[in-house]
């Protein structure tokens, strides 16, 4: 009888072992050039990158980050300006799920800007709008509204505001991917990019800092990836329309020349922290006419999306 008990105890363990193999494990090397080509010398990049759906979807969340855009603007000592942001009153104008997802990206980017400048007095209004839009496209459960509201209302732990905002958007992205609604993730990302580029374009109109000019120019790299991502879903009529609306901006960017000078990264260890410093240089060439055209076309597209 004891033998049966031993079998009973060991059996499930063996079955568990057999069932616990990881499906996602791939024994491939690290030749990354087959999936994503990045210029490896001083080379001009005018072509959209040829990337697989899998790669673009994985990259989705990272294509445009509100936190990084806002940090770069703030890092240049550009003062906060509420007028740059999309008015939450506009949110009522969005009817379809596609429009709401695009707006979710726009307001999400604005939330990143508000968080970065610690303007908590405006945050509640924006997270309320984001929550409504997220609920409408059935992803509201992943947006931690109550915690964000408490943090903003009590003006406490502002780092947590950024953390929870970012994690909420990441969870929305994961859920949309898991439920075969990745197209909406791509639309949200497009909204974030448009608003981030718009914020940079507004700053460009008040600051002649060379880094702002470079920020506008380097969007060429990002719009190429964004377009590659959106084209995965171009059979959808709304997506086809959005691609068409982005096309004029992409065409202007074709005139921007980006070249790279590659160098070896340097490793420095200080107080137990290892820092790798990239020594590559990016050189962006565009004349004033192109620069102003880009600013105008980005602002026109954003007005069109917000139905202004």
């Amino acid at each position, binding site marked *: 009888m004891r033998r049966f008990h031993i079998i009973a105890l060991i059996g499930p363990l063996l079955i568990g072992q057999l069932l616990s*193999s990881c499906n996602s494990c791939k024994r491939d090397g690290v030749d990354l050039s087959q999936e994503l080509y990045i210029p490896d010398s001083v080379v001009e990049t005018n072509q959209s990158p040829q990337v697989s759906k899998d790669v673009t979807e994985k990259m989705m969340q990272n294509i445009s980050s509100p936190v990084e855009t806002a940090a770069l603007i703030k890092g240049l000592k550009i003062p906060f300006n509420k007028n740059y942001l999309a008015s939450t009153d506009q949110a009522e104008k969005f009817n379809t799920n596609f429009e709401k997802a695009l707006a979710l990206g726009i307001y999400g980017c604005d939330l990143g800007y508000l968080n970065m400048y610690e303007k908590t007095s405006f945050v509640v209004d924006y997270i309320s709008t984001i929550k409504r839009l997220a609920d409408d496209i059935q992803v509201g459960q992943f947006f931690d509204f109550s915690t964000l509201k408490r943090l903003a209302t009590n003006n406490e732990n502002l780092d947590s505001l950024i953390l929870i905002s970012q994690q909420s958007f990441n969870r929305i992205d994961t859920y949309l991917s898991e439920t075969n609604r990745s197209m909406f993730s791509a639309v949200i990302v497009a909204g974030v990019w448009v608003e981030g580029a718009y914020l940079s374009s507004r700053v460009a109109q008040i600051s002649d800092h060379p880094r702002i000019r470079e920020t506008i120019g380097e969007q060429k790299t990002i719009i190429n990836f964004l377009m590659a991502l959106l084209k995965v879903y171009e059979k959808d009529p709304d997506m086809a329309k959005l691609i068409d609306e982005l096309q004029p901006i992409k065409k202007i960017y074709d005139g921007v020349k980006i070249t790279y000078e590659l160098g070896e990264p340097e490793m420095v260890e200080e107080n137990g922290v290892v820092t790798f410093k990239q020594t590559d240089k990016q050189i962006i060439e565009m004349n004033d006419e192109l620069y102003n055209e880009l600013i105008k076309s980005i602002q026109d597209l954003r007005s069109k999306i917000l139905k202004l």
Partner: protein
Amino acid sequence: MKKILFSLVLAVVGISYFNNIYAQSEEELVQICTMISGDAEYLKDFRIKLDAGDPPPVQRFPILLKKDIKYRFTVCNSKDYEGKVILQLYDNNRQLATTYIVATGKDYPYIDWVCTKTGAYHLVYSFRDGKAGMAVGLLSMVGTM
């Protein structure tokens, strides 16, 4: 026969319960990683789970990094697995940074990366000596340059 079936059911339920109670979840690892990354702003997390293998299996994530941002890459191992995670940052085919310096044999819980070129990069995660492992990688922002 009834006793055998009862014992089987009891064992399965017991093992499941035991795993649920003591196994470290990915969410827990993300929380730990966030604490380890200190005052850097969270941007994204990556979940890594790999079987043992020779050559060591890898999990890759393409990302876009922006010029003039100092990023922090943090790694956290699950205590439920033997594998020690290694992160390597690549651009096209060049390794640019890693959490494991082979020459010294030193492992770092996080590394910083000062980016000077906006573009696509790859995070490549593997476990040392091809052991099985579960880990979380964190991408965060230390600040602007």
